[in-house]
């Protein structure tokens, strides 16, 4: 009896907290973000119903069928009809939800960044993000890991002999123009990191030895924090940078200040 009540109370409190959204996502700031949030909400509604019905049902069963005088057991080994019914029902329900979300993933990851996207290279290291812009020529210059020299400030191993490398900009924080597609090329020079910006709804591991591309379009002006989401060592919890989403003009000024 008390157990059933407890289960019900836990269920109701949980449901209330999810409906009340007291602790929730930050406002979305990317083009693909709303679709992701919608898929989350769809999943929440479906799993929420399953959760509520199962917990309330469990509570009901243990109250209604508790041992008391005169209670007779309905001897039964089960029902194949019911087995087939709930197997089919859960299959259809769960697969429908999952299939509904595949499109979002496909558009983000199976398709390349739109032509003309702004390319930015991100190189993770213990415990900072290095952000490289190709500069005025629009081309990334050569780099080599043998040229990396943190103490001299060459964090990504830029090869100064390459003409295309001359105007590359390497900075510790990021800015992107609003409403323009951006392609990030994620790399790491030591261990695995993960590039995470909550408001943009993006996260991707930066794996040493690989260059992983992701793309997004920021839709809302503001400054957002970049966090590391893959355990990378003792400073993992403070591997922070910021990304500023600026108007096209402000973005150009921002980059120009850092090019000189």
């Amino acid at each position, binding site marked *: 009896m008390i157990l059933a009540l407890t289960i019900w109370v836990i269920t109701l409190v949980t449901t209330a907290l999810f409906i009340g959204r007291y602790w*929730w996502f930050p406002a979305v700031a990317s083009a693909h973000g709303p679709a992701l949030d919608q898929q989350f909400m769809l999943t929440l509604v479906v799993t929420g119903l399953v959760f509520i019905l199962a917990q309330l049902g469990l509570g009901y069963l243990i109250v209604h*069928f508790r041992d008391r005088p005169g209670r007779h057991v*309905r001897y039964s080994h*089960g029902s194949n009809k019911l087995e087939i019914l709930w197997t089919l029902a859960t299959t259809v329900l769960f697969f429908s939800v999952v299939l509904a979300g595949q499109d979002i993933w496909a558009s983000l990851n199976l398709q390349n960044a739109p032509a003309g996207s702004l390319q930015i290279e991100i190189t993770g290291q213990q415990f900072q993000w290095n952000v490289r812009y190709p500069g005025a020529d629009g081309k990334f210059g050569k780099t080599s890991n043998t040229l990396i020299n943190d103490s001299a400030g060459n964090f990504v191993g830029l090869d100064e002999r390459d003409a295309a490398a001359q105007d590359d900009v390497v900075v510790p924080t990021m800015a992107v123009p609003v409403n323009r597609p951006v392609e990030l090329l994620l790399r790491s*020079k030591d261990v695995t990191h993960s590039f995470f910006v909550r408001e943009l709804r993006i996260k991707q591991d930066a794996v040493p*030895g690989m260059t992983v591309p992701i793309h997004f379009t920021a839709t809302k002006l503001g400054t957002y924090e970049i966090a590391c989401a893959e355990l990378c060592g003792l400073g993992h919890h403070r591997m922070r940078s910021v990304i500023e989403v600026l108007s096209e003009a402000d973005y150009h000024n921002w980059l120009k200040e850092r090019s000189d």
Partner: protein
Amino acid sequence: MTEAVHVEPVVHQAPQGFIRKYIFSLDHKVIGIQYYLLALFSVMVGMLLSVLMRFNLAWPGTEVPILETLFPVGAPGGIMTPEFYLSLMTMHGTIMVFFVLTTAPQSGFGNYFLPLQIGAPDMAFPTLNMLSFWITFVSLLVLLAAFVVTGGAPISGWTGYPPLSALGEIAGPGLGTGQTLWVASIALFCVASLLGALNFITTTIDLRTKGMSMMRLPLTVWAWFVTAILALLAFGVLLAAGVLLLLDRVVGTSFFIPAGLVVSDQMINHKGGSPLLWQHLFWFFGHPEVYIAILPGMGVTSQILSTFARKPIFGYRAMAYAIMAIGLVSFIVWGHHMFLSGMSPYSAMVFSLTTTAVAVPSAIKTFNWLGTLWGGRVRFTTAMLFAIGFVSLFVTGGVSGLFLNQPSVDIYLHDTYFVVAHFHMIMGVAAIFGIFAATYYWFPKMFARHLSERLGKIHFWITFVGVYSIFMPMHFLGVMGNPRRYAEFTAFEFLADVVPIHEFISIAAFVTIGAQLLFAVNFFWSIARGKIAEINPWSATTLEWTVPSPPPHDNFGGRAPVVHRGPYEYSVPGASRDFILQSEPEMKVVHQ
């Protein structure tokens, strides 16, 4: 050629002398208890680590003088360092997953009760059984040694992702000797688990008594049997991965370390390895491992729900097939841990669908548990409370899986506290509830005495409300974007909002962990002073309830029982009492 081979039954003579009887014992029951006690010790260590972790997460930078006395390196000036936090976290995960969740339900209870439930005098290979336990014991010692070596315990998490775990001390403290001990311990544990798995599988196939067909096995035996098959196929892969990592670390090979790394401004002299190779091997083991931890709990829950609802399990065949289906599918879902790892996005979509498939047999099990309660006569023993708690937690921990198996939704939730909430709910506390349920249920058989029901119920209530208070709020932390494996939440502006929730969780954790002392007291007090138990105190139906408590050395006194019916014949209409033992020859039907 066709001459029948006559196999002499192995004659078991009870060993004389303390060492052969209790230390290097060949008796599956003693070995089961040894495993259980090892898990009990491990879970206490694991919980102590949680206390320290939860303290640091809620109140980082607080000066606690006693910490400096206890951990002069980890907490200089009484303040925990981030690397000390990460080493606690790594050891907590490793100890809990391997030495508690893999050890207690399968090696502990499985060892003790599988032979009894199938009517066998012992496991198929008693010496191998003893060897499995002692290798596990050495493996635990090797792991714990990491605490005391220079540099301390490793900080790379229980998943030990390279390059972090492969590069040595240059990548961080604890990644030298401590990490090497960690890998060695895991490799030893794999060997022990492989030997154990062989034993379980052979025993189930070969040593079932007359009449014990596969479809008359208690669902606990089904669970242990399928778990052993998973262990056999999964631990071999982890062993290989562990050996490769050890070679990278000690011999200088490059299985997991790519060319051209620069760590702390120094070139690393390795070429040609792949960090993703480790992740594939690790999770090929790691996902079946989740089911290795939880399947025995599912078996125990079925057994206990049926016993205390006084009703046959609903859909026995569906339950057995669901266990097999979960086992099978668990081997093709590992990529859902790697959606954002840089793996092909096409693979992600396939792994997403296979993972969804696992939800179906899981749902079948839940429906059948509810079906078992429906129309029953439910008795609320402590064992039953924990079994009902298991169902509740299994549902809660299960539904959050439907978020994480979608690559698109996982983009945001991956490596946040949402994941921490999900796996603690389902593989942590649900599995622990299975262990508690089994303990309260079988204790009278193991020690001929009852655990105190009064203490047991208090223990249940605090634990049940406690675990929900700890892990439910973590879902919201995940929704807020709180990354996991952070030593503190001080460096980010947005993390200021999560601190009050962490304080609440920490307090809930202290209370819940404190309540586990009740269990420890109950356990050891009841071994000596508990209420004397009858042979079959729960009026249950399976074979272990037909022998004295504790059962004699050869279990059935040299006479193999004969099985006449399925495992859960409760409240059969017309029968003289509300349960019929599997070994009862004639149904005692009273015609009216």
